[in-house]
């Protein structure tokens, strides 16, 4: 399991299971949140494939759209969407923890600091949807 190496010396070494993050829900949530980055990377690949398909002409793009309808691709995109949502929510909720603002001796409630993030999120999402759907 954890064989001693240069970085893991024999002394002062308690055994930590490779699957330590499966033992408690907060740990698992942490790892799931960190794993969201994989789906962020998948989104970039998907977007670059789309750009290249559009550049290739109408026929190529129709083929790309067909590929997007493949159940496996839909499932992958659904999972990616959920992971990216997890990333967004945990990211926005982090703001009040990163800056504890005090006003009149009292700490400003977390919601007041995270709130503008959610408003910006809604505005940006609406703008992207409007630009794409306009056509």
């Amino acid at each position: 399991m954890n064989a001693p190496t240069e970085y893991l010396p024999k002394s002062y070494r308690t055994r930590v299971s490779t699957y330590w993050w499966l033992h408690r829900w907060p740990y698992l949530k942490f790892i799931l949140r960190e794993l969201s980055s994989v789906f962020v990377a998948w989104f970039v690949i998907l977007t670059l494939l789309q750009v290249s398909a559009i550049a290739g002409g109408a026929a190529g793009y129709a083929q790309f759209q067909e590929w997007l309808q493949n159940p496996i691709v839909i499932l992958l995109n659904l999972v990616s969407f959920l992971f990216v949502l997890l990333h967004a929510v945990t990211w926005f909720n982090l703001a009040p923890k990163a800056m504890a603002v005090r006003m009149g001796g009292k700490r400003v409630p977390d919601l007041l600091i995270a709130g503008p993030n959610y408003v910006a999120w809604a505005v940006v999402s609406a703008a992207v949807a409007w630009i794409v759907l306009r056509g």
Partner: protein
Amino acid sequence: MSHNKRSNEPFLWLLFSAGGVVAAMVIPIHLLLFGLAFPLGWLNPPSYQSLADLLHNPVTRLYLFVVCTLSLFHWAHRFRYTLYDGLQIKHLNELINTFCYGGAIVGTVVAGYLLWSL
């Protein structure tokens, strides 16, 4: 790693952080539209011509380039630590760094090439 070299960790963290904001703000709606709503027929997809026109607008290309690049560096930084912490393979340091940041750099070059050569 040598100790007299200045750490580039703050710079990488800045890219991670900027990428985190961009990814949180725009990726969900992009995936919802192009990955689910259009393929599943919930919404009528935009025509090829309108997407091609949109893509030829320099603002769109710059937007996509920034989104792709920052998202990739966000991935690189976070995934690197996921491997460190989740799998406890810190001894594979160099290999992981090369894979993560190298991947982000390759992705940036590909994105730049694709978007520029349109």
